[in-house]
């Protein structure tokens, strides 16, 4: 089979994998050899769906002995099958990397005929790249559940990043949709990798002796990630977010990726959906960012009584509306951690505020220049004492202003709009929000 034909089949088979990043490793190039790794990662292109292309993302083979319900590569699915030899895949990676198409290789695989021989072929590809071609670019390898601890350890020494797919948000869904994969087979390699990264001696099943790192060897320098499919099973957003939080804490994951379920095969165990639940996926990522960068815990974002994300407002806005007693905050004084909790203030603008306020007292005009989204933020802040939002204690009113594009949120129009709001919704009317704030100052 032509190499290009294989690339078409094995690229298509891998494209539903969500992970795209090439970040987390800093590796200098070597004289006379190819490749380096930049800690921030580099995107090389963007496909028509807006997803970035950073790594050559392919399967080693798409021939599979498993029959997972949601997967297009399942055994019973009638589609063209192909496999790269390790030599072919290493050569193709080198050729693409030299042309700066890619930042490196992402290799996953269907299982054929068993986890160990599958992993061995993938590792052979990595070994050729690293040791024969002297390739120092980025490599992400997918661990095949059930592969032996020795092979997982070798993969970790050759790759920058390693991932084990958790596949579905609960063991129950896994039993239903992927009966050949067990949660034990998924969690064991995750644990091994976490402990390997932490340089503890891996507690291995069967107590086999694993060669530990030699001096200078790096083990999974860019860390471990995982991903799960959202919308193919019944879990709510709260369960999924709690699971992600657990994965970050227990396994020190760099990322937990979500992929909105896209029907690629038909199976009576799968839900019938019109299109992928993209808004839900987006909200989960917003929640994920709150966990990783904004100092929130999953229980602050959702709870068993409100287990699903709001469709109209982002999770930080929803949190703020439930906690109006903590607002408004004075941007010239509030600690960085509290600024991060203000809707419309992101990490970049929070950092800018903290720097800029050392030099001058900040007004709303200044915040605009620093990149704050005032449309959202103004209801939750004061700038040198001045409050320019619509209400600091009426969450329904703020919610209306934030979700109804017809209602302006500027100061000048505020009284006028309140009047018209008052006429249509007398219960929402807040007689004089300013006096209450200025009373505090």
């Amino acid at each position, binding site marked *: 089979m032509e190499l290009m034909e294989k690339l078409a089949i094995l690229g298509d088979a891998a494209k539903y994998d969500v992970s795209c990043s090439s970040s987390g490793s800093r590796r200098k*190039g070597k004289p006379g050899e190819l490749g380096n790794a930049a800690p921030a990662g580099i995107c090389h292109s963007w496909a028509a769906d807006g997803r970035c292309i950073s790594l050559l993302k392919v399967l080693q083979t798409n021939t599979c002995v498993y029959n997972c319900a949601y997967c297009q590569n399942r055994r019973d699915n009638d589609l063209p099958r192909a496999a790269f030899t390790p030599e072919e895949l290493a050569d193709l990676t080198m050729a693409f990397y030299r042309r700066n198409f890619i930042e490196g290789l992402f290799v996953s695989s269907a299982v054929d005929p068993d986890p160990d021989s599958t992993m061995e072929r993938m590792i052979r590809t990595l070994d050729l790249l690293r040791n024969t071609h002297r390739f120092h670019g980025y490599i992400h390898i997918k661990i095949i559940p059930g592969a032996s601890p020795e092979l997982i350890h070798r993969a970790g020494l050759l790759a920058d990043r390693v991932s084990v797919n958790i596949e579905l948000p609960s063991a129950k869904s896994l039993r239903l949709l992927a009966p050949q994969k067990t949660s034990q087979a998924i969690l064991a390699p995750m644990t091994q990798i976490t402990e390997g990264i932490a340089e503890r001696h891996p507690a291995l099943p069967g107590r086999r002796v694993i060669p530990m790192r030699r001096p200078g060897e790096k083990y999974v320098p860019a860390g471990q990630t995982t991903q799960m499919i959202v919308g193919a099973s019944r879990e709510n957003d709260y369960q999924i977010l709690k699971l992600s939080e657990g994965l970050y804490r227990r396994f020190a994951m760099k990322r937990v990726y979500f992929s909105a379920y896209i029907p690629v095969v038909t199976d009576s165990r799968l839900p019938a959906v019109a299109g992928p639940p993209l808004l839900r996926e987006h909200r989960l990522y917003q929640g994920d960012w709150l966990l990783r960068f904004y100092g929130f815990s999953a229980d602050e974002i959702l709870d068993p009584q409100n287990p699903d994300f709001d469709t109209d407002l982002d999770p930080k806005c929803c949190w703020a509306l439930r906690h109006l007693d903590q607002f408004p905050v004075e941007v010239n004084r509030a600690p960085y951690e509290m600024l991060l909790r203000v809707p419309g203030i992101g990490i970049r603008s929070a950092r800018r505020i903290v720097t800029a306020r050392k030099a001058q007292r900040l007004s709303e005009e200044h915040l605009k220049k620093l990149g704050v989204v005032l449309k959202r933020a103004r209801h939750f802040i004061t700038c040198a004492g001045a409050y320019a939002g619509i209400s600091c204690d009426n969450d329904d009113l703020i919610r209306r202003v934030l979700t109804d594009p017809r209602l302006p949120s500027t100061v000048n129009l505020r009284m006028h709009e309140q009047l018209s709001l008052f006429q249509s919704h007398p219960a929402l009317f807040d007689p004089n929000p300013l006096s209450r704030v200025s009373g505090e100052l």
Partner: protein
Amino acid sequence: MAVYVYDGEWEGLLTALFHALADAEPPADIQPAAAVQPTFFDTVIRIQSDPDTVTRLAAGIRRRISDKAFHNVLYAYLSEEDDSAMAIYRYLKLGFAIGRTVDRHMADDRVLPVLRMVDRVSFETHRLLGLTRFRQTTDGIYYSSISPDGQVIGLMAPHFAERMADMDWIIHDVKRGLAVLGRNGEWQLVSLPYIEAEFDEEELAYQQAWKAYYKQAAIANRKNPKLRRNYMPVRYWKHLIEDPYRA
């Protein structure tokens, strides 16, 4: 009022800035020769770049303001934006008055425009580290063309020099007639108005493979052309090998 006219080069700009900063009255404008349009009331001052003056101002910025400020001035110059020289003038004027805390004044109109230019130049450099495409010529040299908004070619060079230490390569800024030549981990910036390159069958096959890979990478029921344009503005498409117009 005074309009300082310099040759468009970095040294010329620093010389012009030195004189403008020494003058008690602020200048009406500082412009490269090609862009200057003085009004009837302006006094045009043509600046000859002078190495001693350049060294003096550069050292002064580093010592009396900060290394970071010098970096900011260089990047703002490389942005080649119309008002960059005057923005730098205002930034340095304040910087010399208050010293190393100048960058804290992020919301000040004398500082913000320079910081924005620095951001745009850094961002474009980073973007092009990914978007630059090399084609192997029949001479075995890997050639790429770009036409960036700013003069970022020299900022991109160290990355590729380190990465492609076993290759001969060229990045050609066709908009400015500049090129970086790389070999053995070293690079140099040269003037290169035009170059002719030929490609063989194998090279064309790799280009085809990449085009096909790019096309199939999108998931059909997640199509989002607007999101793609946000990440990869259309002005960068013409130097790619993949074809976003047809994928």
